[in-house]
């Protein structure tokens, strides 16, 4: 007996590729554009969303039979807000510099469409264990795109990874910079993320034509 049944495994693996929240459902784009200039920020954002979505899905799933449907959005908001404030406070306490980089975007996890989307579409109709897996799966799918985008933007834009200069020093011209290479300032600004995400979507759909929408 495997740890997870096949159906449950799919809850985690589907959002990683063929039902990815960012590249297929095109949700959560705002934060993907805003905070992916550095790999570290992307990773922290991904972990924060994983916590909020995993815990939030469980909470909503447990309450699903007692929430009056007319006020369910408000209840969902309160749950997300509570979890987000916890994340925010933890970040401020242990990673103050990073929380300044992420600034308002941790707070804006509340409005991240993926979270409300999973609450509405999954947690309200499924048990806590499956909701938890769904939350982890979707936040992993979100996080993996964030990390890919963050990797390319930080490498090409700043020449660093996790703040560590992998391409040499641009000021004293060592490493790759000695050959005349320069950092690409375009990758630092948010529109670059749109293009990187667009290229990921392009590659993904040309590898799997079943994903291409009819229009």
């Amino acid at each position: 007996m495997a740890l997870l049944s096949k159906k449950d495994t799919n809850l985690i693996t589907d959002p990683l590729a063929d039902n990815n929240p960012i590249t297929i459902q095109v949700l959560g784009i705002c934060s993907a554009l805003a905070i992916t200039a550095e790999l570290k920020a992307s990773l922290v954002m991904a972990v924060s969303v994983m916590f909020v979505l995993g815990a939030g899905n469980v909470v909503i799933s447990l309450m699903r039979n007692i929430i009056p449907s007319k006020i369910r959005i408000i209840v969902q908001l309160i749950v997300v807000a509570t979890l987000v404030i916890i994340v925010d406070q933890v970040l401020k306490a242990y990673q103050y510099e990073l929380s300044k980089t992420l600034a308002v975007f941790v707070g804006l996890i509340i409005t991240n469409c993926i979270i409300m989307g999973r609450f509405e579409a999954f947690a309200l109709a499924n048990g806590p264990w499956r909701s938890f897996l769904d939350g982890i799966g979707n936040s992993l799918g979100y996080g993996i795109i964030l990390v890919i985008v963050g990797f390319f933007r930080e490498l090409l834009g700043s020449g660093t990874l996790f703040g560590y200069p992998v391409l040499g020093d641009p000021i004293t011209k060592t490493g790759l910079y000695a050959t005349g290479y320069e950092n690409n300032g375009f990758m630092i600004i948010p529109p670059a993320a749109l293009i990187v995400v667009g290229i990921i979507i392009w590659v993904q759909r040309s590898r799997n034509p079943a994903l291409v929408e009819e229009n």
Partner: protein
Amino acid sequence: MSLKSKLHELKLKYQGKKMAPAFNAFHTFLFSPDETTHAGGTHVKAADDLKRTMNTVIMALIPVLLFSMFNAGYQHYSAINGFPADFSVMNDFLTWDNFWIGIIKVLPLVVVSYGVGLLVEFIFAVIKGHEVEEGYLVTGMLVPLIVPVDTPLWMLAVAVVFGVVIGKEVFGGTGMNILNPALTIRAFLFFAYPTWMSGDKVWVYGARERSEEILAGANVDAISGETILGYLAQNKGAEMTYSVSDMFFGFIPGSVGETSAFLILLGGLFLIYTKIASWRIMVSAVIGSLVMGLIFNQIVDFGWVSESSKFYGLMSFDFWKHLIVGGLAFGIVYMATDPVTGSQTNKGKWFYGFFIGFISVMIRVFNPAYPEGVFLAILLMNVFAPTIDHYVIRGNIKNRMKRLKNATIYPKDSDGKAEELKAETV
């Protein structure tokens, strides 16, 4: 056997093979295809296919390119030795020394632009199995003319790949793009490598090297390669030594091919004469920039802007001079008139062109950090062009509906048939 028939034989041999598009691209460049239209049915035949159209634009660009090669050298030597006291075109400008600088600095830009851009086009054509599209012929010539002369070649190559793939191929190739690919390349360069695209060190060959030598401690004079707009943006218009005829004929620093308003004007007239480019867009863009320039001049005349204001230099610049400095003339003639990304309707072209001129001058004045807004203005209007067309067409439909509603339809009675019919039926 002639070359033509040999090529046709080769074409049959390659038909259906993977490399067929690549071969056909070169083939149709030399000769028109030997296939004839089928008998029966209606066919429109025109000699000016896409390749011939593109070639016409390139012909209009050749004088600009040649001038820019001389100018690259002229600016370089003038910056080192000082401007010649009594300037004569033959002795000081059209010299072999100047042209040599053009060959080593400008020609590589052209080669890289065409080489990389066409390589991307060929790869896409072979992968997707369609014919190589001609769209890059003009773009490839425009790109080296709108970048600073000192642009490193690898940057240009990266930008060209970006511009052709993201600006054009993802939308479906030539004719489907929303933004002008040449300007997409320029915009990419500007945002990616701003230190190479603006400032006072990039417009003249050698200025950057000199400044690096001075930093390293060499005892040489710095070269100033500030553009006219650069001077004005810093309120240093008085230090400028360029006369109006310098500006008009193009003996000034700037992007490679943008300086000579005179040759651009000739190119524009040629394009209008051959009906390749729209005169409506050119005229309305000129009007637009003059209007905006006049508004700023009036603001200065009213005394609403003090001389210490950072906008004063550009606001007080004579409104008509905006057309002969910077890239405005080049943008209006060769970029704004791109038939793919511009407005298609005649009325729409007037709006489209007007706002290009209007916004260009506005950006120039209000963005002193980078006093050249032409490429941003054209890209912006590229985005709005379909919307403009939409409303023009809607307006036309509305007018015609109104006409239909109010129309009185008289019976045709010229030949008396109507009367006859009437008599029969009664």
